[in-house]
C-alpha cells in the first residue's frame, strides 16, 4: 500500500470525501425512496445563481458569504420544485428538469453579466463551484465531517417520519403529519449537504454520491434502516477506494475516481445481490421454468403410458411440453433429456425409437399428480394463508402444511 504513514493530504481528503460519501448515502436514500433521486443535481445547479447573487449583493468573495448565498439559492431552487408540483399540473421529473435548466441558465447569465456590468475582480466565481477533490484543506474536511454528522443525526432522529412520508405521503398527511414541513426539511438537508460538498468535491461527485450508494444498497436489503446505513457505508467505501487509487499515481483526478468506485460497487450489487441480483433472478426464473417443464413431460409420459402399448417417442413428449411452454421445442427437448438423465424413462429393446416409463419415473409422475390433486383440495377448502405455501416447484403439501396446521 502507500508509504507506512499515509500522506497528510491523502488523509485529509479521505476524511472529507468519506464524510460526504456517508452523509450523501444516508440522505440520498431518503431522496431515492421518495422518487426524487436527482434532487441533488437540481440543488447543485441552483447554487450558481446563489454564488452570483451573493457576489452582486455583498461584493465580497470570501467562502462564508458565497456558501451562505449558495445555500439560500439551493433551498430556493428545491422549494420552487416542490411548489411547481403542488400548484401546477407539471409532473415530478419535469419540475426537477425545469429547476435544473432555468436556475443554471440564470446562474450563467449572472456570472457572464457581472464583468460587463462593471464589477471588478469577478473572476473565478464559477471556479468556486468546480471544486477539486484532491485539494481539500483541513478546514474543508472538518466542515464536511460536521455536516455529515449533523445530517446523520437529523436523519436518525427523523427516520420514522421521513420513511412514513417517503412511503405514503397521503397516509402521512391524513394521520396529521406535516408532510410539507418534512418534505422541506429533507430538501433543506440535501441542499446543505450539496452546498457544503460542492466547493470541496464538485457538483457531479455530490450528485453521484446522492444517487449511486442508495441504489446499490437497495439491492442488498428490504429494510429502510439497514438501507440507509448500508448506503452510507457504500458511500464511505467508495470514497476511500477512489482516494486510494488516485493517490497511487499522479494524473488521476480524485473526484471522478470516487464516482467510478461507487459505480463499480453498484455494478457488483446489481449482478450478484442474493435476492434481487440480476444473476440470482435469472437463475431462479430458469430453475422454476425447467422444473415445471419436467413436470409436464412426466405427466405426458404417464398419460401415454396409460394408452396403447405404454410406449412413447421423445417427439410426442417434446410436443406435449412445447405446447405448454413458450420455450417451444428447446424446452421440450431439455425436459426429456432431464428425464433420461434421472433414469425416469428408458428405451424399449427392439430398436424402435420407443421409450417407456421406468418404475422410478412412474413413481415420480404419480407423486406429482398426487401433489397436484392435494394442492387442488387445499386451495378449495382453505383460506388464503394455506395457499401462501404453494409454489411452482410443487413442495409436498403435507410437509409444508404441517407447519400451518391445515388438513392436507
Amino acid at each position, binding site marked *: 500500500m502507500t508509504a507506512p504513514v499515509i500522506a497528510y493530504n491523502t488523509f485529509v481528503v479521505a476524511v472529507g470525501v468519506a464524510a460526504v460519501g456517508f452523509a450523501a448515502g444516508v440522505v440520498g436514500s431518503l431522496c431515492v425512496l421518495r422518487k426524487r433521486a436527482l434532487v441533488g443535481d437540481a440543488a447543485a445547479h441552483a447554487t450558481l445563481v446563489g454564488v452570483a447573487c451573493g457576489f452582486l449583493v455583498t461584493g465580497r468573495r470570501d467562502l462564508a458569504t458565497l456558501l451562505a448565498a449558495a445555500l439560500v439559492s439551493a433551498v430556493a431552487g428545491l422549494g420552487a420544485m416542490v411548489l411547481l408540483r403542488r400548484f401546477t*399540473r407539471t409532473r415530478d421529473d419535469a419540475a426537477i428538469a425545469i429547476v435544473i435548466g432555468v436556475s443554471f441558465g440564470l446562474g450563467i447569465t449572472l456570472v457572464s453579466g457581472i464583468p460587463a456590468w462593471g464589477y471588478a475582480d469577478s473572476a473565478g466565481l464559477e471556479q468556486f463551484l468546480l471544486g477539486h477533490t484532491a485539494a481539500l484543506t483541513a478546514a474543508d474536511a472538518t466542515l464536511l465531517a460536521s455536516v455529515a454528522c449533523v445530517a446523520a443525526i437529523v436523519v436518525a432522529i427523523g427516520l420514522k417520519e421521513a420513511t412514513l412520508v417517503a412511503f405514503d405521503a397521503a397516509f402521512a398527511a391524513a394521520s396529521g403529519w406535516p408532510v410539507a414541513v418534512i418534505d422541506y426539511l429533507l430538501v433543506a438537508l440535501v441542499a446543505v449537504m450539496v452546498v457544503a460538498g460542492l466547493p470541496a468535491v464538485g457538483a457531479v461527485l455530490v450528485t453521484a454520491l446522492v444517487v449511486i450508494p442508495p441504489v446499490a444498497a437497495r439491492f442488498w436489503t428490504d429494510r429502510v434502516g439497514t438501507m440507509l446505513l448500508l448506503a452510507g457505508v457504500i458511500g464511505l467505501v467508495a470514497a476511500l477506494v477512489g482516494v486510494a487509487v488516485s493517490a497511487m499515481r499522479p494524473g488521476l483526478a480524485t473526484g471522478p475516481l470516487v464516482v467510478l468506485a461507487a459505480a463499480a460497487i453498484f455494478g457488483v450489487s446489481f449482478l450478484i445481490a442474493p435476492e434481487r441480483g440480476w444473476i440470482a433472478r435469472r437463475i431462479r426464473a430458469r430453475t422454476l421454468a425447467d422444473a415445471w417443464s419436467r413436470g409436464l413431460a412426466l405427466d405426458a409420459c404417464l398419460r401415454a403410458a396409460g394408452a396403447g402399448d405404454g410406449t412413447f417417442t421423445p417427439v410426442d413428449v417434446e410436443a406435449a411440453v412445447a*405446447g405448454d411452454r413458450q420455450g417451444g421445442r428447446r424446452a421440450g427437448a431439455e425436459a426429456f433429456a432431464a428425464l433420461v438423465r434421472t433414469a425416469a424413462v428408458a428405451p424399449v429393446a427392439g430398436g424402435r425409437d420407443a421409450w417407456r416409463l421406468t418404475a422410478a419415473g412412474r413413481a415420480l409422475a404419480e407423486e406429482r399428480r398426487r401433489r397436484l390433486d392435494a394442492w*387442488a383440495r387445499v386451495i*378449495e377448502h382453505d383460506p388464503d394463508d394455506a395457499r401462501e405455501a404453494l409454489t*411452482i416447484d410443487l413442495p409436498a403439501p403435507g410437509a409444508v402444511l404441517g407447519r400451518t396446521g391445515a388438513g392436507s
Partner: protein
Amino acid sequence: MNAAASGPSPASSSARPPLVDFHDVTVAYGRRPVVWNVDFEIDEPCLFGIIGPNGAGKSTLLKAALGLVPTVGGSVRFGGRPLREVRSRVGYVPQRETVDWDFPVNVMDVVLMGTYARLGWFRRPGARERELARASLDRVGLADLADRQIGRLSGGQQQRVFLARALAQEADIYFLDEPMAGVDMRSQEGIFRVLADLRAAGRLVIVVHHDLRTAAEWFDRVALIDMRLVATGPTAAVLTPENLRRTYAGHIEVLEELGRAVAARGRTS
C-alpha cells in the same frame, strides 16, 4: 382433479378448433403462482364472463392471453393459431387506472388509436378511419363528446371511450378487463347493452367481472376462477351455490360471519 366441466380432452367437441383455447395456463410472479393450470375452451361467439374474488388472478389470466405477462406454462390459442398471427383480430380494453387521464388527447384521438394497427407505420388515419371511429362512438353513446379532453369525462364515459377504441379495431374477439369497476349503474347498463350487440353481430366478448348479480343477468357462459379453474359452462349451470362456495371459499364465510354480527348488533341497539 381439475374439476373442470369440459375436461382437458384434446379432441374438442366440434370439428373446428375452439375460438379461444386456454391450455394449462400457469402464471407466476417470481415463485408465487397467481394463475394455476387453468384449462378451458370457448367454442362459439358469446358473452363470456371470467368471475372470481379479488386477487384470484382473473386479470392476470386475461393479460397472459394477450401476451402482456410471461406465462410459466401453458398456452392460449385463437382458432388453433398463436396470438402473433391474429393480433389485429383481437381487441383489448384495459383497466381504467392503468392510464394517465391527464394526457393531452381528446376522445376522438383515443378511439382512432384502435385503427392504427391496420394503418401500419406511416399512413395517417383517413376519412374511412374517422368514419369508423365516429360510428364506434355512436354505438357507445359518446358521439357528442368527440372533442372533449379525456380527463374531463366521468368514470363511465372513460370506460366507454376504451370500449369504442376496441370497436374501432373491428376485432372478432374482445377482451375487457374489469370494465364495470367504478362505473355507475346507468353506464354499466349501457356498456352491457353494447356488448350484447357485439355478441349478436357474431363476436366473442370475454369480460373479467366481479359482481355476481350482473354476471348472472348478462353472461351466456362463465368461468369461475380462484387461482385455478373451479368450473366453466353456461351461466345457470355454473353459478350454483356449491361452485360459488368453492370459488369464494374463505371469503363467503367471512361475509356470512359479518352478516350475522351486523344482524345481532342491530337487534340489541
